[in-house]
């Protein structure tokens, strides 16, 4: 007996082929192909002494501990069992051939030469994923979820959310670090809406860019094991936003919608060793975080082009009414813009508007000013007038007159918007006690 090397194909000849085979010969072949393949054998030429039930000379084929047949005869013979062009396929990667010839090939005194046989075998890929190809159950473990055949082998894979275990066949739920980074999406308990597995420690993380606020909406059905008296003793669904816990949920009533005001949310799902609840499903969405609506601090402050809602990266500009200055504390501002930040706050506080103050009017040499509007009022729109120490001086003004108004720019200006104050010019030739002749 000669084992045939583990090639993918080969040729098997009867002894002496193509010459007639000898008598009294027993030859066996043990065909082996690599694991993952089966043996396919075909006889290209078969010429053995025919006999009833192949009693005299025969070829016996065996595989997988089963006889695939006993063959003898030649084409056209009435007796025997010629294999023809049949394909003999094993279930495993081995096939055994046995050739037996008796002591003679004489028929009615005539020796008839029988040439024997020429056979070819080839390795054919075994589709391990086809359950019909299972040879022995204990030798071929099945994939728990998905089986993938390839030439010479196969591998297993698992459903989404499951992880292939070290035996490469079984699958276990993997939900310990699920990460979601899209602006919106769905997440659910494993197998949802089918009952979730036991012994889960799932952690779903939603991480979005700063400035976005995540909203969670629970869908129907919502079913987590609970207890009437004790809050969530068996299975718990916890929701955290930036480290702080928003809530712990169970039961059959979905929590509804939750506004997290955070760009980072963690959903932790813990289950014990039993239960048949269907689990939960969340649709999360996000939008730019909102900032508080800006409110003017006084009636002189103007918010340019106000929006109904301000969100992250939005901004607003503040100005004051004419005659008022933008102030931040005691500091005068030339302009003001506030930007909505990622944390939902404005990057600087609202300023206020203070009325323009022109300060004390310039003193007039040899004259004075007086307030027309309100005494000692140097604020916007206050009005003063200049006069001279009459009758010794008289007022010489510009075209804008002797009245000065506190302008929006913070200066005293006349009616022509000029700032130059009048002058007191001496009055000549007007003695207070002129000579008057009386006696004539």
């Amino acid at each position, binding site marked *: 007996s000669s084992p045939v090397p583990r090639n993918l194909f080969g040729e098997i000849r009867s002894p002496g082929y193509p010459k007639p085979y000898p008598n009294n010969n027993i030859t066996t072949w043990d065909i082996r192909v690599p694991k993952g393949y089966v043996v396919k054998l075909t006889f290209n030429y078969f010429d053995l002494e025919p006999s009833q039930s192949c009693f005299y000379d025969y070829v016996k084929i065996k595989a997988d501990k089963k006889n695939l047949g006993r063959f003898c005869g030649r084409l056209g013979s009435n007796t025997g069992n010629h294999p023809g062009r049949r394909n003999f396929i094993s279930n495993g990667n081995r096939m055994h051939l046995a050739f037996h010839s008796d002591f003679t090939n004489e028929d009615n005194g005539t020796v008839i030469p029988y040439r024997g046989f020429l056979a070819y075998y080839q390795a054919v890929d075994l589709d391990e994923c086809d359950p019909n190809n299972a040879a022995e159950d204990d030798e071929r473990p099945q994939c728990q979820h998905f089986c993938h055949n390839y030439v010479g082998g196969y591998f297993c894979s698992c459903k989404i959310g499951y992880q292939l275990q070290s035996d490469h066949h079984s699958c276990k739920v993997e939900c310990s670090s699920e990460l979601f980074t899209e602006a919106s999406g769905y997440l659910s308990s494993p197998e949802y809406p089918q009952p979730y597995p036991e012994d889960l420690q799932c952690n779903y993380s939603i991480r979005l860019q700063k400035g976005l606020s995540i909203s969670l909406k629970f869908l129907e059905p919502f079913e987590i094991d609970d207890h009437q008296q004790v809050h969530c003793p068996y299975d718990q669904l916890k929701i955290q936003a930036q480290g702080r816990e928003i809530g712990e949920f169970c039961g059959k009533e979905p929590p509804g919608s939750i506004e997290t005001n955070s760009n980072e949310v963690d959903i932790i799902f813990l289950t014990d060793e039993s239960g048949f609840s269907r689990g939960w499903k969340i649709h999360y969405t996000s939008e730019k975080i909102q900032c508080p609506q800006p409110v003017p601090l006084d009636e002189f402050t103007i918010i340019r082009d106000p929006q109904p809602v301000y969100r992250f990266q939005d901004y607003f500009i503040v100005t004051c009414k004419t005659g008022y200055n933008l102030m931040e504390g005691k500091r005068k501002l030339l302009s003001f813009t506030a930007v909505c930040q990622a944390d939902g706050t404005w990057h600087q506080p609202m300023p206020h508007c203070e009325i323009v103050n022109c300060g004390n009017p310039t003193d007039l040499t*040899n004259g004075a000013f007086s307030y027309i509007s309100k005494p000692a009022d140097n604020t916007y729109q206050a009005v003063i007038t200049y006069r001279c120490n009459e009758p010794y001086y008289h007022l010489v003004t510009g075209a804008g007159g002797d009245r000065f108004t506190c302008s929006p720019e913070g200066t005293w200006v006349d009616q022509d918007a000029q700032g130059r104050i009048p002058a007191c010019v001496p*009055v*000549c*030739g*007007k*003695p*207070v*006690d*002129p*000579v008057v002749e009386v006696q004539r």
Partner: protein
Amino acid sequence: ILGGRPARRGSFPWQALTGIHGRGGGALLSDRWILTAAHTIFPKGAAGNSLSLEQLAEEANVFLGHTNVEELHKIGNHPVRRIFIHPDYNPDDEYNFDGDIALLELKHPVTLGPTVLPICLPDATNTTLYMDGHMGYVSGFGVEKNFISNDLKYVNLPAIAREKCQRWLDSKKRDIPMVFSENMFCAGFLSVKQDTCQGDSGSVFTMLDTESGRWVATGIVSWGIGCAKGYGFYTKILNYLDWIKGIIRED
């Protein structure tokens, strides 16, 4: 002032008392200029006219605001910044007082009030100012009856027609060959003892402009032959308006 009367405070508020080369007078223009006679700064025939105008300005004394000399001194001196002498004035020509006009710029403007007020300058188009008989008033701290006055006096004098001035002067020319230029006029009486005298130089001859109601300076006390012995001669301010305004306005 001979034959005059004491001035009341507030009647001649432009009157200045000067002390440059002896007593003199002047008149306030605007709030920082004193109009006076050039010979009060550079006297005729004075050997010691060697000081510069800057030095003279440093030493000049100008008083304003009272009719009494002692009170004037108490009020205080008004320092002089600059002195402007008319270029036509020749201190070496004893007989010709042409261009006898000067301006003193005070260092600090004065504050006007009832006792310190400026005199006006005349309107250049006024043709009646120097007509024969046009009355005017002259004030001054000068000599009165051989004594220098401690109080401001004033006298009412008529302007005299040029021909009369010249005729009178011609009668005196044999002894004193004085020049009566067109930049002068004369005023006063031949026989009435009313006149200006030494110490009144630089004071102004004023007239009331009835149209504007303002007193205007038409002359500056300049020279005479004795006092109250004929006409007195005055610098004709009307001829120097451009010069005056040119200096004052430039400042």
